[in-house]
């Protein structure tokens, strides 16, 4: 990976944020900011903090669709958030946040949050275990990868790890998990690229001594692994302790909040100058099959407490980083192994679902909500799921490209396909200048079908710009039924016939994607 120098930026000095349909772009002016950036370390010192919400977060109650409130309320009347209590976002009317997420709301209105709607993948898996593996390895739902997406990225930068590490070029851990177990996301081809710590200063010294050679047997393999860990623990202890020692005071964090405690450690290490690029923290309890909200007041209850905890922790983290003058180095994202069912159950909870929104935060993150409110059927049944608008690997690809300045060809080897890139992070972060395309699809019919409802066949029409065009068809559970279009087009209007005579009746979604644009069209097959 070559070091990149930041370009001296000579474009117009537009310092005020530009708003394009609620999606704001920071176009930083010349001199002070960029001088600071270019005289800073020539190496890209950007950090990504991943916040795993374990259990399957109910995204539909985290980002509530105000423009579809009637349908939302009807689908889950026993747990729907009261319309008046939904937190409003500046310059954006279509959705709002759960009432307990005042911290994230404030960050959004300060221009530091991007919300991406309905993130998922084709034919989603509904088991925690499998779905988590999919998100962490970046695999398709019908394949198994034994490396993590972040592990593969780190492998492109630090090939051969751990042999020869740490060294003067890479003295610090490549990735850190706050906790005791290293996430599979960090699994590289040879070893895990990450280390686990539960505290910034609590380590234990091991004795180095004679070690016998390892035979070519099962126990030899395990012995070799254990010795490797023993060595690793020793190597990074000094680097981590040295960084931690440089930070002697931090801002306030909420009490009794395990996520806040983890983020506090991250802030300390980042501010202390540790060169580690990736951090993973996690918080659980999101598998809300029952009693998600309080009966009397749906804005309160178990899920409200969880979201409030996450929001407060993120806000405290961002404030602390600002106070430590380290906030510009950090981008954070939340994710969960799946969202939950549109229709609630009688236990005042929700069962496993599919797509859900993601929150991305940071000084350089472009403010806005990407995508439309989740598509809801007029009358939800127990099997209906939120159709995906964006693939989760697009999120990874976008962050890798815009924040870690990863080349397009390298991106493809990490994620194994060319995923749609979304404008999540300000273009100046990687020294590239991007103009923001108009991504809103309000009032535009980029994909339609007729007749609708239909019996066996329907004609689908789409309008595309240049470049690759993708049309996917999903059923209401999220299962990928077909990919009728996936090729490069000249700009124009195109039609094809969708043959559904072998498919059961019900709701289908046609998802259109071209460049950074997408639109989902609900279709109904009847008798």
């Amino acid at each position: 990976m070559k070091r990149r120098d930041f370009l001296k930026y000579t474009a117009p000095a537009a310092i005020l944020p530009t708003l394009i349909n609620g999606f704001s772009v920071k176009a930083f002016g010349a001199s002070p900011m960029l001088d600071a950036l270019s005289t800073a370390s020539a190496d890209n010192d950007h950090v990504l903090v991943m916040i795993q919400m374990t259990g399957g977060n109910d995204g539909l109650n985290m980002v509530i669709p105000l423009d579809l409130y009637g349908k939302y309320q009807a689908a889950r009347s026993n747990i729907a958030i009261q319309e008046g209590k939904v937190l409003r976002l500046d310059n954006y009317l279509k959705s709002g946040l759960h009432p307990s997420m005042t911290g994230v709301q404030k960050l959004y209105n300060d221009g530091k949050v991007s919300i991406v709607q309905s993130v998922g993948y084709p034919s989603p898996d509904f088991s925690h275990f499998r779905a988590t593996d999919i998100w962490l390895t970046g695999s398709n739902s019908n394949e198994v990868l034994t490396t993590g997406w972040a592990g593969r990225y780190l492998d492109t930068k630090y090939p051969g790890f751990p042999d020869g590490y740490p060294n003067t070029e890479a003295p610090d851990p490549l990735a850190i998990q706050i906790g005791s177990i290293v996430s599979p996301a960090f699994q590289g081809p040879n070893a895990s690229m990450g280390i686990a710590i539960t505290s910034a200063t609590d380590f234990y010294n091991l004795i180095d001594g004679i070690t016998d050679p390892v035979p070519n047997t099962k126990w030899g393999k395990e012995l070799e692994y254990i010795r490797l860990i023993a060595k690793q623990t020793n190597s990074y202890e000094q680097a981590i302790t040295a960084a931690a020692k440089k930070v002697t005071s931090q801002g306030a964090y909420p009490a009794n909040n395990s996520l806040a405690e983890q983020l506090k450690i991250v802030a300390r290490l980042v501010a202390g100058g540790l060169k580690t690029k990736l951090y993973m923290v996690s918080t659980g309890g999101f598998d809300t099959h029952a009693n998600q909200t309080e009966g009397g007041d749906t804005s309160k209850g178990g899920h409200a407490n969880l979201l409030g905890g996450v929001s407060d922790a993120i806000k405290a983290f961002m404030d602390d980083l600002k106070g430590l003058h380290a906030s510009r180095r950090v981008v954070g994202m939340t994710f969960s192994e799946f969202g939950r069912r549109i229709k609630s159950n009688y236990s005042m909870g929700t069962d496993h679902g599919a797509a859900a929104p993601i929150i991305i935060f940071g000084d350089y993150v472009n403010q806005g909500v990407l995508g439309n409110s989740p598509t809801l059927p007029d009358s939800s049944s127990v099997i209906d799921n939120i159709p995906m608008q964006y693939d989760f690997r697009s999120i990874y690809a976008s962050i890798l490209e815009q924040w870690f300045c990863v080349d397009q060809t390298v991106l493809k080897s990490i994620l194994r396909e060319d995923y749609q890139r979304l404008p999540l992070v300000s273009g100046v972060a990687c020294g590239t200048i991007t103009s923001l395309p108009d991504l809103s699809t309000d009032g535009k019919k980029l994909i339609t079908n007729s007749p609708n409802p239909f019996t066996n066949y329907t004609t689908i029409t789409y309008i595309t710009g240049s470049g690759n065009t993708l049309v996917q068809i999903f059923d209401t559970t999220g299962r990928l039924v077909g990919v009728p279009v996936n090729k490069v087009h000249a700009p124009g209007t195109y039609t094809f016939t969708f043959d559904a005579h072998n498919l059961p009746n019900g709701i289908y979604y046609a998802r259109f994607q071209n460049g950074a644009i997408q639109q989902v069209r609900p279709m109904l097959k009847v008798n």
Partner: protein
Amino acid sequence: MDRRQFLTLSPDRHQTRTANTIARTDSGITPYTGTWDTLQRIHLLKRTLFGVSPANINTFNSLSMQQAVDTLLTAQPDPAPPVNNYGIDATGVTPGATWVKAPLGDEMLERKRIASYKAWWTGQMINQPASIHEKMVLFWHNHFVTETGMVNDSRFIYQYNLTLRKHALGNFRDLTKAITLDPAMLVYLNGYLNSKGAADENYARELHELFTVGKGPDSHYTEDDVRATARVLTGFRVDRTNIVSLFDTTQHDITNKTFSSFYSNKVISGKTGTEGATELDDLLKIIFLQPEVAKFICRKLYRFFVYYDIDAATEQNVITPLADIFRSSGYDIKTTLNALFTSEHFFDPLNMACLIKSPADFCIGVCREYGIPFASDYTNQYKGWAVVHDRAAAMLQNFGDPPLVAGWEAYHQAPSFHELWINTDTLPKRNRFTDGLVGSTGFNGLRIDTLAFANQLPNPQDPVALVADSLDILYRVGVSVALKDFLKNTILLSGQAPDSNYYWTQAWQAWKASPGDATLKDNVETRLQALYKYIMDLSEYQLS
């Protein structure tokens, strides 16, 4: 090669630590007829018990292989239940009396009772007789998971432990039914809220995915199967006064439930009234017809007791025939374990010493290996047990609270499996625990008496024999002469000339002659402490 390891990376990507480079074996479950000696005995004992004491080794010295396995597979009676070791109990349980049938307490009290339960359970494992029963309770806890933090009812949790205990070496079908109706499980996976009209799928899904057929390549249950199962299970409720489960006929879905081709398209007729509860029996009958059930469970047993890697040869030579035995025995656990523990595969040298000790093996094992004494009064006894539990939890194995319903990652997360127990956070914790135990002040009230341990060995005055005999008990793998010399010369002989073994012999004999003499005792004890500390700090100690 692990079945799940699709090669999805580009072919020229070089993997230096692939399973392909390791010596493989084709041994199966035909009965073992080879050498039956110390090596095999200790292997069997360390896999079926938590650590092995010199006393265990002595007892089993006189037993044949089948006698040894028979002894180890004998079910044990229920132990005495946990008691109030926390003091004030608003529901009236006096200190020293048991709380397991008392009324539900408030949040504070329940927390104390759960702590009492966890200490008690740890104590049962530490005091285990020479039987696999305690390990099977832990195995089933990792399979039919509940978490105390989500059940929030100490009486239910204790009852759940009894359910596991009762069937641990019995019949797996009976166990599955008992767990489905267990009050703690009904709370944990929302079964007690499952009602007709809008069934709650939580338990239904896990019944297939985690408890019976699993989610491997040969498991093809469908989402519709999950929904149908949820409807079969509607209506069960819990009784917090009598600590049992009940059946509410008004909440039961009485429609017919149809299953997929994976389950032979069977249909369960909906039944009204109290008969509705028997739909569970119909359901289990259908599920257990599926051959994959036996295989799934046998793979789990294999991973827990033998090794994590199930290559094609192991699947064919071990799992498949073992599953046949399991299935044709009507799902009898003891019969199946007997076949596994008397097999060629189990005693194949290539399959020994390769299991990384779980925190249970490590923490409870060290207590049993060295015979660490615990207090005899229950207050201090529970305190000591709680220290051990706390250490295991810090090393990622919190008995009673696995991280998720799938159990501890080390038993299911590919590709690392048991390597997940060992990382840059937990390895130092293991080292610090044993270093503390072997030091002069001990670890939170627990201490290894190195003199007592050495004194049990056949020839402790000879430093060469002392090192060799200690390693026989503490390690599963052989070590080089260079390492043994280092241990003797640098540690026992404090760096004196290597041919001066008599320095140690003299010191040992002097102490034995005047055991009360503080200086003489100190001479040998400091060296023994350094010796065992070093032995336990090396990576070899982590293998079982």
